[in-house]
C-alpha cells in the first residue's frame, strides 16, 4: 500500500546504481560469524578505558583514583576547541565499580603504543545512579536540534565505522550547509566482519528511528541506506522497518570491496565523485555508519551513553565465532575466552578486517569505540604474502597492471611503486599518492606479492617529513635573512648615531673656538698659566732630588704639594 502512495518507493529495485573503478572480491568469510545472534559478553573484572578513543586529543578525566562510579557515569570529559581543530569525546563508565588507577596502558594501535587510561575495577553490580542518568528525549521532533546535538556530545558518540570522529562535531558542521542526502553505510565490505549485519537484523526499528532523528536534525529530505547484497536478511529487516517513511530507501548494492569506503559508497549510490581533498559535505552528502546511528538512537531515545558496542569475534583461531555486545574497555583476552578460547591457529589478532585492520601483539589490550572486529587467525588462512611468515615470496614488479585495474582511486600503483623505489618523491606526488586510501586492493591482487601499501605509507611519511623539513628550512632562511638585515640596520643606525655625535662635537668645538676669538684678550692669561707650570715643574724637580731614597712616597707627596 505504501508503495502506491509513495511512487518513489516503487523504484526501489530499479534505482540506478553506479560503480566505482576497480575493487576486488576476496573470500568474504561472513558465514563464519553471522549465523548466531548477538550475545552479551558480560562484565569482566577489569575495564581499561583509554582517554582517547576518538580522533583528536585526550578527554580530561573527571574522577580520581579510589572513586566509586556508577554505570553510565561520566569519567572523562571532552575538552575540545573546535576552532583549533582539537576534538575529543566524553567517556563513561561502562558499569559500576571503583577507579583503581589512571595510568599508561597498551591500547589498540598499529605500533603497540601506550596511552593514558582509566582503569576501572568492576563490582559486578552494574549499578546505575539517578543523578548520572540522561533524560530521554522521547519527543525528539519537538526538541531543538542544538539540544539533540548536545545530547549526542554528552553521550560520547563517535563514528563507529572506524574513523571515530566525534559525531556531534560532524553534525554541527553539517548543519551549516544544507544536506540533501543522508547516506547510511551498511555496506560492511571488509571480509569476516558482520557486526553491522547483525545489528541491522536485530535492531532495524531502532536504526530507522536513529535515521529519522538525523533527518530531523539536518532537515534533510532523503536518506539512502547502502547494504551489500550478501546480507539479504539485513536488507529485508531494514526495508520492512522503514516502510512507513518514504524519505528513507534501502539500496541493495553489489558485494565488492571496498564499497564501504565513504567516497565509493556515495559514488555507487549517487554517481557523484567527492573532489580530492574535499568532503561529502561539499556536495550535500553526509555519511553515517549503522553502528553510529544505533548509538544516536540509544542516546536520544533511551538517554544511554556509548558504553558498549557490537564486535565480531571470528577467524580460524577462535573456537566459537560470534558477534558480541561488549563493554568498552573489555580486554581482547576476556573476549576470546567468552568465544570459547583461541586455537593453535591463532597466529594473529587483527583488530578490524584483514584488508585495513591492524595486528595487536598482545590480547591484554582493551576494546575501544573503534573496535568492530577481533580476528584471530592463522597466517595461512589469509595467504599472507608480505611478511616473515609469508607463504609466497615477493618477486619483482612485472608491470602487469592488475593493481591499476583494481585501484578504486584510479591511481597507477605500479608507477607509484616504481617511483618510490627510485625515491623520486616529486614524481610520486605527481601521481597523486595522497589520494591513496590504503584499501589494499593493489596488494591483494599483486602476482608478485609486493607489499605495495607499505611502500605508500612509507612514501606518505617521507613526503610529510620532507615538507616539514622544507618549512623548517624556509623558516630558518627567513630568520637568517632577517638577522642579516637587522645587523645591517643596527650598523647603519650606529654609524648614523656616531656621525651625528661627531658632528655635534665638532660643532661644540667650533662654538668654543668662536667664543674664544670673540672674547679676544686671553694671551696674557696663557702666559701666566705657562709660567705657573714652569714653576711647578722646577719645584717638583727640586723635591725629587731631595727624596731620591724613598721613591714610593715621593709621588704622593708631590701630588699633595702640587
Amino acid at each position, binding site marked *: 500500500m505504501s508503495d502506491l502512495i509513495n511512487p518513489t518507493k516503487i523504484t526501489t529495485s530499479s534505482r540506478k546504481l553506479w560503480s*566505482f573503478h576497480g575493487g576486488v572480491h*576476496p573470500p568474504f568469510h561472513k558465514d563464519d560469524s553471522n549465523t548466531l545472534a548477538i550475545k552479551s559478553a558480560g562484565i569482566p573484572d577489569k575495564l581499561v578505558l583509554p582517554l582517547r578513543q576518538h580522533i583528536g586529543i585526550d578527554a580530561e578525566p573527571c574522577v580520581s583514583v579510589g572513586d566509586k562510579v556508577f554505570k553510565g557515569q561520566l569519567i572523562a570529559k571532552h575538552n575540545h576547541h573546535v576552532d583549533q581543530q582539537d576534538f575529543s569525546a566524553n567517556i563513561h563508565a561502562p558499569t559500576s565499580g571503583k577507579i583503581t588507577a589512571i595510568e599508561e596502558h597498551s591500547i589498540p594501535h*598499529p605500533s603497540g603504543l601506550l596511552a593514558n587510561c582509566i582503569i576501572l575495577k568492576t563490582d559486578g553490580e552494574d549499578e546505575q545512579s539517578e543523578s548520572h542518568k540522561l533524560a530521554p528525549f522521547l519527543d525528539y521532533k519537538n526538541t531543538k536540534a542544538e539540544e539533540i546535538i548536545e545530547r549526542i556530545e554528552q553521550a560520547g558518540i563517535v563514528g563507529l565505522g572506524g574513523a571515530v*570522529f566525534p559525531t556531534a*562535531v560532524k553534525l554541527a*558542521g553539517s548543519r551549516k*550547509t544544507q544536506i540533501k542526502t543522508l547516506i547510511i553505510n551498511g555496506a560492511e565490505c571488509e571480509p569476516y566482519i558482520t557486526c553491522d549485519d547483525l545489528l541491522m537484523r536485530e535492531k532495524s526499528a531502532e536504526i530507522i528511528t536513529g535515521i529519522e532523528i538525523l533527518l530531523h536534525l539536518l532537515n534533510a529530505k532523503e536518506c539512502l541506506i547502502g547494504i551489500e547484497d550478501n546480507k539479504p536478511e539485513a536488507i529485508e529487516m531494514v526495508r520492512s522497518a522503514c516502510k512507513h517513511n518514504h524519505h528513507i530507501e534501502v539500496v541493495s548494492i553489489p558485494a565488492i570491496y571496498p564499497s564501504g569506503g565513504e567516497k565509493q559508497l556515495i559514488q555507487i549510490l549517487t554517481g557523484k*565523485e*567527492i*573532489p*580530492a*581533498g*574535499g*568532503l561529502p*559535505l*561539499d*556536495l550535500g552528502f553526509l555519511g553515517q555508519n549503522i553502528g553510529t546511528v544505533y548509538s544516536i538512537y540509544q542516546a536520544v531515545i533511551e538517554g544511554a551513553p556509548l558504553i558498549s558496542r557490537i564486535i565480531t569475534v571470528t577467524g580460524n583461531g577462535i573456537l566459537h565465532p560470534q558477534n558480541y555486545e561488549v563493554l568498552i574497555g573489555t580486554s581482547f*583476552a576476556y573476549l*576470546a575466552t567468552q568465544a570459547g578460547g*583461541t586455537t593453535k591457529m*591463532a*597466529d*594473529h589478532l587483527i583488530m578490524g578486517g*584483514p584488508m*585495513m585492520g*591492524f*595486528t*595487536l*601483539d*598482545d590480547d591484554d589490550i582493551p576494546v575501544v569505540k573503534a573496535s568492530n572486529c577481533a580476528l584471530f587467525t592463522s597466517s595461512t588462512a*589469509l*595467504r*599472507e604474502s*608480505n*611478511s616473515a*611468515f609469508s607463504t609466497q615470496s615477493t*618477486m*619483482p614488479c*612485472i*608491470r*602487469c*597492471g*592488475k593493481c*591499476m*585495474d583494481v585501484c578504486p*582511486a*584510479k591511481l*597507477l600503483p*605500479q*608507477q607509484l611503486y616504481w617511483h618510490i623505489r627510485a625515491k623520486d618523491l616529486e614524481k610520486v606526488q605527481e601521481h*597523486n599518492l595522497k*589520494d591513496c586510501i590504503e584499501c589494499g586492493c593493489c*596488494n*591483494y591482487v*599483486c*602476482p*608478485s*606479492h609486493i607489499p605495495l*601499501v*607499505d611502500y605508500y605509507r612509507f612514501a606518505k611519511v617521507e613526503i610529510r617529513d620532507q615538507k616539514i623539513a622544507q618549512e623548517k628550512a624556509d623558516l630558518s632562511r627567513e630568520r637568517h635573512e632577517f638577522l642579516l638585515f637587522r645587523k645591517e640596520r643596527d650598523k647603519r643606525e650606529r654609524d648614523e648615531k656616531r656621525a651625528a655625535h661627531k658632528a655635534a662635537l665638532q660643532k661644540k668645538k667650533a662654538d668654543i673656538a668662536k667664543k674664544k676669538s670673540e672674547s679676544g684678550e686671553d694671551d696674557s692669561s696663557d702666559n701666566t698659566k705657562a709660567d705657573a707650570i714652569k714653576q711647578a715643574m722646577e719645584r717638583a724637580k727640586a723635591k725629587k732630588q731631595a727624596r731620591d731614597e724613598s721613591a714610593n712616597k715621593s709621588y704622593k707627596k708631590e701630588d699633595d704639594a702640587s
Partner: protein
Amino acid sequence: MKFKTNTSPFFSSENNISSVMLQVLLALIPGTLVLFYFYGWGVLFNVVLAVIFAVSFETIALLMRKRPVMPFLSDLSAIVTAWLLALSLPPLIPWWILFIGVFFAIIVAKHLYGGLGYNPFNPAMVGFAVLIISFPVEMTQWIQSTSLGQPSYGFVDSLRIIFSSGITPDWDAITMATPLDEVKTGLRAGTPYAEIIQQSPYLQSTIQNTWLWTSLAFALGGFWLLYKKLIHWQIPIALLSALALISAIMHLYSGENYSSPILQLFSGATMLGAFFIATDPVSASTTPTGKLIYGASIGLLIYIIRTWGGYPDAIAFSVLIMNMAVPTIDYYTQPRTFGHGRSPDTKTSMNVKDNKL
C-alpha cells in the same frame, strides 16, 4: 597471550607470476601446434632447444648475480622468452644461431639490465633483432610448408639439419622466402600486387593455408589471454586496428603497389606480435591510454618498415623502437585520479578548507 604482528592488508589473492607465465605458455600451444603441423619437427626443436638454452643461461646469470635460483627459475619467464623467440625463427635453423639469439635475449637484454621486471626492451625481440642483423640469409629462409605438398622432415633428419655444421647443400631447394618477403620483392620490381599472388601457386597456398591458420591459432590463444584478463585489450586491438587501417588506406589508394590488409594481418608474425610480444608487460606501456598509443604506434611502424624498410617483417624493430618511448608515454598518459578534474562539482571543492569541520 602474544601474537605476531604485520601490516595490512593481510589478505592476498592466489595470483602469482608463475601462473601468469604458465597461462601465457598454454595460450601459445595452439599456434605452436599449427606451426608444427605445417613445418614439422623443426618447430618443436626450436622451442625445446631455446628453452634448454634459456633455462641454462638464466641459472648461470642468477648464480653470477647471487640471486636465489629456484624462485626466479620457477617464475617461467625465461621459458616464455625462449618460446617466443623460437616461434619467431625459421624452423630447422642451425642450433648455434638459436644459441646466440637466446644468449642475447636472456643474458644481455634481461640480466644485464637487472633481471625480471627491469628490462626496458623486450628480451625475445632483442635476441631476434641481433639475429636478423647478423644472419639475414638464414633468418629469412623458411622451409616449405607441408601445405605445398612437401613432406616434412622426419625426427632424425630434422636433428641432422639442426646440428650440421652449416647450411646443408640442399638448403636452397627446400626453403623459400616468406610471403611478406616475396610480395615485397615483387612490388619493388614493379609487379602489380594481384599478379604477384596469382603468378605463384606456392605463395598463394602459403598465404591462404599456412599463415592464415597459424595467425588464427595465435589469435585464438590471444583471445583466451584477453578472456582470462592476463593481458589488456588496448595493445593488441590498437596494434591490429592501426595496421589494418593504414594498409587498407594504402591498398585503396593503389591496389597495385600496396599489399592488402588481409596479407598484413594474417601473415608473418602479426598475430603473435600483437597478442604475445607487444603485450610483454615489463617493456610495454602500462597506462590504459598509453597502451593504445603504444599499440597503434607499433602497428604503424610495422606497416612502414614492411612497406618501405629493408626487412620483410617488422615486429621486432617496431616493438623495440616503441619500448624506448614507454617512459615518456606513461608519464603523459596518467589516468584521471578519483576526485580530480572533470567532475562538474570540482570547483566547489576549492573552499573546502574553510568549512572543513
